């Protein structure tokens, strides 16, 4: 398997600063790895590389296209690729199925929302599937994923059954959180999905803590083979939040096994990333804290996968965190309540043409990894899975009234644990005291 030498190529025409249409679509597409001019997102200065990266530039690897556009220091792996291809057939089919599941599921969510089956805040992931699939399909079951409110597809990629997610969205008791969490709060202990947070930036310290626990288990609790990695997913808007920087600092300081994945879709509700950020190149913030920062085309699942492999392996080896900025785009509005009027239709069309699912399909056909019939079979299977999930959710019961007061505490009556290690309330001599509702 070809390894990700983080060779740096740059592309893109020169654009003025502070434009809201930085990714100009009437000119040549940005970040085309074959273009040679070195400017980035409207910056008027050329990107300059330090000597380590320029040497990597000349040693272009033998794969058809280099995975990344801009990078800072990352160790290079020496292994040579066996074949020219980035994936095997099984891997390709797995990636395809996962992305189709994400897309079909989110489309079904939109339908169900407009039919009133789903309610509240629902944030859909259409267009960003390459990031979730590219990273999460490389993780083990014990690795953790932490996300924001746009978390349906992260949960699905991690292995939470579609039925459980759909039921949760319908608010039924068979949901992954018994209907108590909702769209923005997907938790699964079994699959190590640690949320689902409505406050952007809140998930980053939690993810850092999960990574901390992995290191603590190895060093203090003596589980020498504990190499669990955590992936924290968040957006461009979050990259301006204080907690993000606090955690970049501590993760690099303590060399925690975490990958910070920025899903830069250029928009935070209606606030363009360029209007909100003094230096819009988020990957650069990694080296400022002592970790590698990598920028990758987030509409291409194979490129994302190559970068993810290296970042996750780094973390597993104990070399510390990586910041990965994925340039991606959401095809729908911020949420189902967002009229999405501020975004330029031409910009949307430009990214629709780079749909990650179509791109993977094309790659698989061109390299004879799959036939039309096989992919169609996957699509049909996923349709059935999603339909089944809706049916299951529809037929599932609403939570009982008694469920309202359950699970506030892990400790059943809130009286704490006695000296013998059992809950106080289980001790028949302990008098009951608190008010009942």
């Amino acid at each position: 398997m070809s390894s990700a030498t983080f060779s740096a190529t740059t592309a893109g025409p020169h654009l003025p600063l502070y434009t809201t249409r930085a990714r100009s679509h009437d000119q040549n597409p940005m970040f085309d790895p074959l273009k040679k001019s070195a400017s980035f997102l409207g910056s008027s200065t050329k990107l300059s590389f330090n000597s380590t990266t320029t040497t990597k530039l000349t040693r272009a690897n033998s794969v058809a296209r280099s995975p990344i556009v801009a990078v800072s220091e990352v160790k290079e792996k020496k292994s040579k690729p066996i074949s020219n291809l980035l994936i095997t057939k099984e891997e390709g089919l797995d990636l395809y199925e996962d992305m189709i599941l994400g897309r079909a599921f989110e489309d079904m969510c939109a339908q169900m929302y407009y039919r009133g089956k789903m309610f509240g805040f629902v944030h859909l992931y259409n267009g960003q599937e390459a990031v979730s699939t590219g990273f999460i399909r490389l993780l083990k079951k014990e690795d953790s994923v932490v996300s924001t409110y746009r978390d349906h597809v992260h949960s699905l990629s991690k292995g939470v059954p579609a039925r459980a997610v759909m039921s949760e969205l319908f608010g039924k008791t068979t949901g992954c959180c018994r209907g108590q969490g909702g769209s923005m709060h997907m938790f699964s202990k079994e699959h190590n999905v640690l949320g689902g947070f409505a406050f952007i930036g809140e998930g980053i310290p939690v993810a850092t803590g999960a990574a901390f626990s992995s290191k603590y288990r190895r060093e203090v609790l003596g589980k020498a083979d504990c190499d669990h990695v955590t992936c924290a997913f968040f957006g461009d808007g979050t990259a301006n939040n204080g907690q993000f920087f606090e955690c970049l600092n501590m993760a690099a300081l303590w060399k925690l096994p975490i990958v910070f994945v920025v899903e830069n879709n250029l928009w935070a509700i209606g606030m363009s990333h360029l209007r909100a950020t003094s230096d819009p190149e988020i990957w650069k913030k990694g080296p400022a804290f002592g970790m590698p920062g990598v920028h990758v085309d987030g509409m291409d699942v194979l490129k994302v996968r190559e970068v993810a492999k290296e970042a996750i392996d780094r973390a597993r080896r104990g070399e510390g965190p990586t910041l990965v900025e994925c340039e991606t785009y959401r095809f729908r509005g911020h949420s189902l309540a967002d009229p999405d009027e501020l975004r330029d239709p031409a910009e949307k069309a430009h990214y629709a043409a780079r749909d990650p699912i179509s791109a993977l399909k094309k790659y698989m056909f061109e390299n004879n990894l799959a036939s039309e019939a096989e992919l169609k079979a996957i699509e049909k299977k996923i349709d059935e899975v999603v339909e089944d999930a809706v049916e299951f959710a529809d037929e599932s019961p609403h939570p009982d009234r008694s469920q309202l007061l359950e699970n506030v505490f892990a400790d059943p009556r809130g009286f704490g644990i006695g000296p013998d290690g059992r809950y106080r309330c289980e001790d028949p001599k302990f008098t009951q005291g608190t008010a009942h509702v």
Partner: protein
Amino acid sequence: MLGTIRQKAVAARSLSSQVLENDLMRLRSVASVMRHYSAGTKEMTVRDALNSALDEEMAADPSVFVMGEEVGEYQGAYKITKGLLDKYGPERVVDTPITEAGFAGIGVGSAYHGLRPVVEFMTFNFSMQAIDHIINSAAKSNYMSAGQINVPIVFRGPNGPAAGVGAQHSQCYGAWYGSVPGLKVLVPYSSEDARGLLKAAIRDPDPVVFLENELLYGESFPVSAEALNSSFCLPIGKAKIEREGKDITITAFSKMVGYALKAAEILEKDGISAEVINLRSIRPLDRATINASVRKTNRLVTVEEGFPQHGIGAEICASVVEDSFGYLDAPVERIAGADVPTPYAANLERMAFPQIEDIVRAARRVCYRKSSIAASA
């Protein structure tokens, strides 16, 4: 066992000599009361009680670790974690950068995976920078995940006013945290409270906010042999009746328990027998004990240092009116801090927080007695 305060010079552990001086001035301004106790009883400062509780819990369970600013090499901003770094090493006593939101969240994230962090805030005023994590990712998680992910974390630190530390360092957070479902909020007073409640908090599977008091750290209390045992822990959600009485119930927590006890002694001379309840736990609130006491005495005064509106006293009064209205012989009274940000000037600060005389006056009002000449102390 009644908690007593001995007038003794506090060892030079306070942050500044000014604090020490104010502390001693306050103690001297009150008539000191010496109680006799059996010669074999050991005395322990609250600081040592907390330190020993942390030490024992860390020794018993390797997944317990301490995290916060200055907890390691500095031995703790208030020396609560003294000696722990040498004993347990830097992986378990983690000095953090100044990043409350960051390290509180890291604590929560590690608790999701079953570790048992004790996160120290240098004062709970700084917890406001991390309050998102205390409430949204700690308190609510067991509920949002429907019981899949519990958060066995303790947030501890000094709460409420100290002496002359100004408005931004003097707020009491009992009412704010006490209103959040999913949190347990504990407020120890004596050394026995400190030991027992901190041990209970660390062993607890749920997030606990542990509100200490800086001025109590140096105070000594007698501790029983049972309390010195390493498996000792107190129940959560149960208040303690520090002093029995029959004419009026005074509820208090943290430092105000000491003031209430002193006020009770003054009231005794006037023939008013006051029952002093040490709440120990703001959430869950021990409504049963409070109501049982009010049904016995028929009068209630609540005491707290926090702001009056939406405070702990408001909740206790509402609870008593709801459950024991027919038993009340007088309207309930709540004494709280003044409704102002804490001033710096010493005389203004004294006026901004309840003093013993305020408790005595309120108790007299509730008993429909005039102030007697021998009132003030």
